[in-house]
């Protein structure tokens, strides 16, 4: 996909730029201004939705680096989020650490646990790795419940509202800003990680791991790096989720969420940072629609219809995307952009 006519890339930096023209920068600025102005004109409900979307985007970025770029399929992402969330929650509630220090600790803890459960990836792949990560999810949640004296076990753990530098993040608006800033940083970082040496190694491993190894890429090192980065992202997302509710409970990290994050990646488009955002936003919106439609349906059909609607719609949307648009929304978006760029001519070259 070339750039618009009249735009010439005269050096490497221009060619590699994420936002190649002033127009792109303009769009970005406009988007950020609208995003950060949201609290002034939107209701609490929309702010909550946007905050949840932001957290999902961070989490899916991690999964995208791990699964989309490095092809190490993980269905334990919610488990790794739980590690990050619980570590920061325990540090805040039991040791009185401030929020800004607990968040990175949580992320680091999630990364280290991710390294541990990433170890089997050195010997196995595909289905076996999926099984190992599913096992990781359940073992993590079980361990959290067993460590009752530290984590509160099944009763959960309540923690103080987060404060950064004297600014209380108790209001929805302040927390929204925190999450959005972190989401933007995470996106920038994710976009840049895949352009580094490590990112290129991940792509080589995804395309053919044996060939990558023969070319001199250390599978041992890069697979574990992918697990570490992916799980650090999960840890940040998990910590943000728990601090948003000021309450830690294993119910916030159900197994279905692990599947759902992978679903976001499929709907958005694997191996694309923009796609990860599309997927997270689209499926959170779908969730919202289902939540709104649920009570109506429950009243009309049967009391359990709401719960089953959520499950069936989740499953159907994943299957529909897999069969009809396996490259996800991102591919669709690129096609639309190309169409308008080339209009009125029908195709390129």
């Amino acid at each position, binding site marked *: 996909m070339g750039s618009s006519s009249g735009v010439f890339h005269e050096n490497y930096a221009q060619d590699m730029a994420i936002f190649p023209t002033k127009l792109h920068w303009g769009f970005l600025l406009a988007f950020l201004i609208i995003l950060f102005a949201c609290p002034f004109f939107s209701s609490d409900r929309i702010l909550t939705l946007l905050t949840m979307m932001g957290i999902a985007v961070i989490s899916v970025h991690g999964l995208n680096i791990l699964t989309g770029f490095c092809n190490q399929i993980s269905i334990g992402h919610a488990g790794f989020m739980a590690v990050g969330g619980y570590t920061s929650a325990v540090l805040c509630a039991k040791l009185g650490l401030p929020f800004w220090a607990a968040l990175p600790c949580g992320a680091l803890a999630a990364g280290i646990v991710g390294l541990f459960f990433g170890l089997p990836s050195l010997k196995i792949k595909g289905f076996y790795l999926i099984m190992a990560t599913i096992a990781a999810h359940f073992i993590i949640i079980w361990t959290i419940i067993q460590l009752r004296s530290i984590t509160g076990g099944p009763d959960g753990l309540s923690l103080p509202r987060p404060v950064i530098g004297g600014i209380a993040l108790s209001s929805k608006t302040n927390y929204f800003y925190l999450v959005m800033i972190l989401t933007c940083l995470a996106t920038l970082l994710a976009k840049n990680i895949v352009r580094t040496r490590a990112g290129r190694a991940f792509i080589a491993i995804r395309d053919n791991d*044996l060939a990558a190894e023969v070319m001199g890429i250390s599978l041992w090192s890069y697979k574990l790096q992918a697990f570490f980065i992916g799980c650090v992202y999960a840890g940040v997302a998990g910590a943000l989720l728990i601090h948003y509710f000021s309450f830690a409970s294993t119910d916030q990290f159900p197994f279905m969420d692990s599947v759902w994050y992978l679903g976001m990646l499929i709907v958005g488009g694997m191996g694309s940072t923009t796609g990860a955002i599309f997927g997270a936003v689209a499926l959170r919106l779908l969730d919202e629609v289902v939540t709104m439609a649920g009570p109506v349906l429950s009243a009309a059909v049967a009391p359990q219809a709401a719960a*089953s609607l959520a499950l069936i719609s989740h499953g159907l949307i994943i299957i529909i995307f897999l069969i009809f648009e396996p490259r996800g929304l991102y591919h669709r978006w690129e096609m639309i952009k190309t169409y308008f760029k080339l209009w009125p001519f029908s195709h390129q070259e």
Partner: protein
Amino acid sequence: MAFFIQLVVTGLAQGMVYALIAIGFVIILKCSEVFNIAQGHFVLIGGYLGYTFLVPFGLPIWVALGMAIATAIVMGLIIERLILRPLLGEPVLAVIMATIALATILGGLATLLWGGEYKPYHGLLPIISLKIGAVSLPSESLIGLIVSVICVALLMLLFHYTKIGLAMRATAEDLQVVQSLGIRATTVYAVSWVIACVVGVIGGILLGGVSGAHIELANIGIKAFAVVLLGGVNSIGGAIVAGIILGMLENVAAGYLDPLLPGGGLAQVFPFIVMIIVLVFRPYGLFGLARIERI
């Protein structure tokens, strides 16, 4: 000692049911290289189908079993045609995600149709009891053991002495050869899904007869995965041996360790611990073939 033997014997009966469910998984995997995450949800549907035909319809056990199997056959055909066939030749992740999505949909359907409630149907299966010394085997477990053994034997006969069984074994061996010999691979795939559905549903009725039909029945699928990994994913014999081993280990571990742990519930997480250990130390299981890859 009697306590230990009791645990082992109960584990044996339970393990045989696990093995039966795991075989459904292995058959699909061997024939079409699809890892069917929804196997546990076939069991869930089976448990509820058993309830529906036995309690509200009040059918005798054999008719109910026949009806459940007929439903399973239709279910298998629909699933194969609508979901798996369009995904033929897609990467592993796409197919696995499709079966996960299928599992989600089946779970949603079970919630919708049966309310996801606990539906017991004890005492409707025939009663046979066995007592040797201090060890007694409850009637449900014994029936589970007998039915599983019969099913496994029937499957073995199917594989070795029928034309479709031969076609299935050949497809597992080499798809291209099979196609060039004029065997329809899609028929083989459809049959393998039907078999998986049927054994899942039978397993569901057996387990439902012991503990009642409930939404947690789907978790049995995860135990079946542990069995499959332990036995080696492409070995039916391995699945049987591993099913029995896992059933026994689980019962013994739960019997001796649960009183020591404050929260209990070791039986739930036990299959996962087995899985991780197997994956780290012997990824191809006890009887699986180590795959050699080329670029």
